[in-house]
C-alpha cells in the first residue's frame, strides 16, 4: 500500500510536472524553417488532422499561465494556437492568391477631369475583351428592368410590356425569351440562373431557365418589386397593396407577411450583408424590415416626396445607404446612426421623373436621372458635407436621345466594370473602370466561369447551409456572440422582507454573490470600487437611482452604505467598513496636523493629558 502511494506521489499531478528537458537546440536547426507551402498543401491533401504529426506547426500563441484552472487553460491555449496557426497559413496563402486587381481611371495632372471621358474613349483604352461590356440593346418592350446573377454571368431583363429574357453575358447565348403580354414590373434570379421570378400584373411567377412557368405565387398580389435573399432562400415582394411578403423558395412556405400601412410601394432593395430589406414609400419614409419583426426595424423620413430609389453600399458591409426621391435630391445615409444624411445634393434634372441610385461592389455610386447617369466615387460622397453642392463627378454618361428616357434601372455587373442601364429603348451597358471587385471566390459561387458541376454542388451546399429566417437581424454578427446579461435580479438574502418573492436560493446564486452572502468575499475593495464608479458615472444614473442616492449634507458613499445597514446587526462587511472609515479619518487628521505644524506633532500639552487612557489601541 505504501509502495503504491509512494509511487503515485512520485508521479506528480500534471500541473506540477517538471518540464522535460528536450534536446531543443539540436532539433531547432531542422524544424526552424519548415517549408510553409508544402506544409499547407500536405495538410489539405494527405491525412486527416488526427493522424498528422504536429511538429511542423510551431507558432507563437499565448500560454495563459495566469489561469489556474487547467481544463480552461488547455482549451484556451488550444483555441489560440489554432487561431495563430490559421492566421499563419492565411498570411502564407495570401501570397499565393491572385491579387485582386481593379480597374481605374488615373488623371495625370490635377487639371484633368475624369468625367470628360466619354465611353468611346474608355472603350478605346480598354480594348479587347473588356470592350465587349459596352453593349447597346435596342428593344421595344418599354422601359426595362435589369438584374444580374450573384456571380455576374447571367442577366435577365423585363420590359414593362411583358418582354422578359434571360441570357448569358459572356457567350451571349439567350436562355429564354418570353412575351408575357402583361405588365411586368420586376425580375429577379433565384439561387442561380436556372430559375427567375417575374413580378407580373397580378402575381409573381417563377420560370426556369428555359422560360417554362414553374410556379404561380398567388400570395404575392400585384407585385411591384422583388428581391431574393440567397443565403436564406427567401423571395421577397412588395406590391401596390403595401404588403411585404417573404416566401421560402426551398420549402414553398410563406414565411412572413408584413403590412407596411404606408400605401403602395415600389422601392425595395436588400442589404446583402445582413439580409434586411429596405422599402421606400410614397410619403418619403424609408423602412427597414426583417421577417421576424411585425413592424419596421428602422423608419426614417428620408425625403419630402416619394422615395424613388434606394441602394445599399456593398463595399463597406452595408454601412451606407443612398436614396433618391421625387423631391429631386439624392442623400447618402450612415446606417449606424440615422442622424440625418451624411451628404445630400439636388439633381440637375430637378426631380422630373424617377431617379435611380446604385452602388457598385467597390463603392462607386451611380445616379441616373433625366437623360444621364452620373458616377461618384467613395470618399467624397461619404464624408459629411454641409452644403447641398454636388460631390466631385467621377464619370458621366448621357443617354443618346430623349426617347431613351426614363432610366428605370441601374445595375452594376458583379466582378466586371460594367454598368447596365435599363431605359425606355432597351438596355445599354457602359464601362465604369473601378466599379467591380477583381477577386472572385469559387467556394461561394462568386465565379464568372463557374461550371455545371460546381453550380450543382453549390446549390446542394447552399440548401444544407440555409439560414433560418428568424436569424435575420440588423446586426448580422449577433449569432454566436455572447448573450446579454440576464435580467434575473439577484436577491440578496439580507433578510429584508421586501424582495422575498424574487429571492433566489443560496445554491442558485453566482459564486461571487455566494461568497458575499457567506461573508468570505473581500468586500471592502469591492464596495470601494463601486463607490468610485458611482461617482464617475453619476450623470448616467437613472432618476430613480439618483433619488435613492440623494444625500443631505456631507456624506460619502461608504457612510451611505453604513447608514443603510442596521445598527444592531454585526455584519463583517459593515465592521470592516467602519474600521476603514475610522482609519481614514485618523489619517486625514494626521495629514491636517502635519500641514499645520510640520513634521513634528506639536500638540498643546495639557494638564489633563495624564488622565488619558493609554490602552485605547
Amino acid at each position, binding site marked *: 500500500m505504501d*509502495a503504491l502511494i509512494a509511487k503515485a*506521489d512520485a508521479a506528480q499531478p500534471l500541473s506540477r510536472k517538471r518540464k522535460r528537458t528536450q534536446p531543443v537546440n539540436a532539433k531547432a536547426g531542422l524544424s526552424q524553417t519548415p517549408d510553409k507551402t508544402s506544409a499547407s498543401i500536405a495538410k489539405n491533401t494527405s491525412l486527416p488532422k488526427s493522424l498528422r504529426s504536429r511538429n511542423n506547426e510551431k507558432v507563437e500563441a499565448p500560454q495563459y499561465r495566469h489561469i489556474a484552472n487547467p481544463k480552461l487553460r488547455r482549451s484556451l491555449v488550444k483555441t489560440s494556437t489554432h487561431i495563430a496557426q490559421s492566421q499563419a497559413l492565411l498570411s502564407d496563402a495570401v501570397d499565393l492568391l491572385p491579387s485582386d486587381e481593379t480597374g481605374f481611371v488615373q488623371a*495625370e495632372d490635377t487639371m484633368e477631369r475624369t468625367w470628360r471621358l466619354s465611353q468611346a474613349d*474608355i472603350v478605346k483604352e480598354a480594348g479587347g475583351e473588356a470592350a465587349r461590356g459596352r453593349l447597346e440593346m435596342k428593344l421595344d418592350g418599354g422601359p426595362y428592368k435589369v438584374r444580374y446573377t450573384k456571380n455576374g454571368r447571367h442577366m435577365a431583363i423585363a420590359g414593362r410590356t411583358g418582354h422578359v429574357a434571360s441570357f448569358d453575358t459572356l457567350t451571349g447565348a439567350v436562355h429564354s425569351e418570353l412575351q408575357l403580354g402583361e405588365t411586368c414590373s420586376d425580375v429577379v434570379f433565384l439561387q442561380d440562373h436556372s430559375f427567375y421570378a417575374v413580378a407580373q400584373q397580378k402575381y409573381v411567377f417563377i420560370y426556369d431557365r428555359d422560360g417554362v412557368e414553374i410556379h404561380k405565387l398567388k400570395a404575392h398580389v400585384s407585385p411591384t418589386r422583388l428581391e431574393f435573399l440567397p443565403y436564406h432562400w427567401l423571395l421577397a415582394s412588395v406590391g401596390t397593396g403595401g404588403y411585404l411578403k417573404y416566401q421560402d423558395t426551398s420549402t414553398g412556405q410563406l414565411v412572413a407577411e408584413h403590412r407596411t400601412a404606408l400605401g403602395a410601394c415600389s422601392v425595395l432593395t436588400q442589404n446583402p*450583408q*445582413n439580409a434586411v430589406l429596405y422599402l421606400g414609400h410614397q410619403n418619403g419614409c424609408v423602412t427597414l424590415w426583417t421577417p421576424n419583426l411585425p413592424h419596421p426595424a428602422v423608419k426614417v423620413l428620408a425625403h419630402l416626396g416619394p422615395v424613388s430609389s434606394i441602394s445599399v453600399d456593398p463595399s463597406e458591409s452595408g454601412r451606407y445607404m443612398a436614396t433618391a426621391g421625387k423631391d429631386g435630391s439624392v442623400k447618402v445615409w450612415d446606417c449606424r446612426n440615422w442622424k440625418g444624411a451624411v451628404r445630400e445634393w439636388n439633381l440637375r434634372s430637378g426631380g422630373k421623373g424617377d431617379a435611380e441610385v446604385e452602388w457598385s461592389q467597390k463603392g462607386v455610386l451611380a445616379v441616373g436621372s433625366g437623360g444621364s447617369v452620373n458616377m461618384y466615387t467613395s470618399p467624397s460622397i461619404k464624408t459629411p458635407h454641409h452644403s447641398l453642392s454636388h460631390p466631385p463627378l467621377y464619370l458621366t454618361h448621357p443617354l443618346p436621345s430623349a426617347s431613351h428616357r426614363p432610366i428605370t434601372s441601374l445595375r452594376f455587373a458583379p466582378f466586371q*466594370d460594367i454598368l447596365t442601364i435599363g431605359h425606355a429603348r432597351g438596355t445599354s451597358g457602359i464601362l465604369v473602370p473601378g466599379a467591380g471587385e477583381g477577386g472572385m*471566390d469559387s467556394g461561394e459561387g462568386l465565379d464568372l466561369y463557374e461550371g455545371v458541376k460546381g453550380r450543382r454542388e453549390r446549390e446542394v451546399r447552399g440548401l444544407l447551409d440555409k439560414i433560418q429566417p428568424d436569424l435575420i437581424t440588423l446586426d448580422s454578427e449577433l449569432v454566436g456572440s455572447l448573450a446579454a446579461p440576464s435580467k434575473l435580479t439577484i436577491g440578496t438574502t439580507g433578510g429584508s422582507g421586501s424582495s422575498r418573492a424574487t429571492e433566489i436560493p443560496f445554491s442558485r446564486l453566482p459564486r461571487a454573490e455566494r461568497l458575499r452572502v457567506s461573508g468570505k468575499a473581500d468586500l471592502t475593495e469591492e464596495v470601494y470600487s463601486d463607490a468610485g464608479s458611482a461617482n464617475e458615472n453619476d450623470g448616467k444614473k437613472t432618476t430613480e437611482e439618483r433619488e435613492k442616492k440623494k444625500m443631505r449634507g456631507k456624506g460619502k458613499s461608504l457612510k451611505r452604505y453604513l447608514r443603510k445597514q442596521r445598527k444592531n446587526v454585526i455584519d463583517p462587511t459593515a465592521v470592516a467598513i467602519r474600521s476603514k472609515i475610522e482609519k481614514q479619518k485618523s489619517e486625514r487628521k494626521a495629514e491636517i496636523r502635519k500641514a499645520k505644524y510640520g513634521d513634528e506633532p506639536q500638540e498643546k500639552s495639557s494638564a489633563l493629558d495624564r488622565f488619558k487612557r493609554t490602552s485605547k489601541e
Partner: protein
Amino acid sequence: MVKISVLQHDPSSHTATRPGDPTPVSRNLNPLMHPFSRARERTRALNAAKMDRMFAIPFVGALEGHVDAVEVLAKQGDSISTVASGSWDGGVIVHNLSQRTHIVRLPLAHKGKVTGLCFAGDSRLLSCGVDRNVKLWNIGSDEPLNVFPGKHALNSIDHQRSSAMFATASTLVQVWDETKSAPISNLTFPTSTETISSVRFNLSESSILASVGSDRTFTLYDIRTGKAERRVVMQMRANALSWSPTFPTNILLASEDHNLYTFDIRRLDAPSLIYKGHVAAVVSCDWSPTGTEFVSGGWDRTVRIWQTGQGHSPEVYHTKRMQRVTSTLFTTDARFVLSGSDDGNVRIWKGKASERLGIVTARERAAIEYRNSLVDRWKMDKEVGKVARTRHLPKPVYTANKLKNTMLESRRVKEERRRKHTRAGESKPKPERKKVVLVEQS
C-alpha cells in the same frame, strides 16, 4: 492624358484547360465576400449535431445462451474478442465477440448462481458461486481442472495478473493459491461483520486489494502485510468497484445511492469526483482500458458511459427489453461495451454511439472530424447544445429522473430555509463531496 484600366478576367485561369482536369479554384478572403459566415457555420453545426444523433445506433448485437439472468461478465486481459459470462442458472459461457459464437458452454458450472468469474492467464478461467466452490477451468474442456471448496457462499473473485494467486469475497476476503487447496490467508478488518460483495486487485501494485461490503464500507488490504490497511464507511453501500487502468491510485465505486464515485486512495476523506446520472442503484462499473471513460449499469435498466472528469450527462443506452443491468464491461479495444442484464442476454454496444464501424476513408474521417469540431465549437449555442445534449430516455427513467430532481431540489430548498432561520454563521452549507464519507478508519 488619362490612364484607364478596365477589369478583365483571363478565362484560361478560371476554366479547366483540358476536359477532365479539375476546375481551378479562386479565393477571395475579403470578409465582405462571405456574408453570414457565422450564421452559416451555426447552421452547419446544427446539422452536424443532428447527423451525429441520426447516426447514433449504439446497439450492435446480443449474445444469447443463458437461461436466467446474467450475473457477471469477465474479459480476458490480452484478447480483444474473448469474454466470459456467468448466470443465475449456474451456467458459464465463454463467447467469441467477433464471431458471436460460444467458445465453451458450461451449463452446470455451479449449483445456484455464478457470482464471480475471471480469467487466469491465457486459457484458464476461474469461477465461483453461491455453492461455496471456486472452480478452475481449462477453456475447451467441460470438467474443472481443480475445485477449491470454501466455507461460505462466495460473492466475487479476482485473479492477480502476474502470479497464481486469486482472492475471493464472502464474509471475509480470502487469498488463494492455484496450487493449494486451502486459502493461504484470510483478510478482514478487525471489527467488521459484513458480507463482502466485490473484491479487486490493484492493476499495478498487485499486492493491494480493495473490497466493498454490505456494511457501507470500502476496504483496502495489502496481502504482504496480510491485513486490512484502511477502511472507509460511506453513507450508502457500494455495489461494485474497479481500479483505474492508467492511474493506479484511482478507484471507481458504483454506489447504491445512484452515484458513482472516484477515489484517490491517497485521500480517502472525500471522493475526487461524483458522477451523477443514474436514477436507481448502480450495480456494476468498468473502466475503459484507456482510462478516459468508464461504463456503468444499474437497476434503472440503463447502461451509461461516462467521461472521466465529467460528472454529469453521460451517454445513455437502453432498449425496450433490457431489464436491470447486473454487469457491464468495456472491451479491451475500448470500442465496445458489454452489458449483461436480468433478461438473460449479453448485449454488445458501441463505445461511441455514432461511431461508424468498418473502414472509414480519409475524406470521410476528415468530414467527421470537421463535424465534431463544429459541434464542439457551437455547443454553447442553445439549439446546437440542446440537440447534442439531449438523450431520449424511457418513460419510467424519465419520470424517475424528474421525481428525483424534485426531491433533491426540495431538500436543498429546505436546507436553505433552515439555514436562513438559524443564527448567521452557525451552519454552513456542506459541500456535496464531503457528505459521502462518514468515517475513515485505519
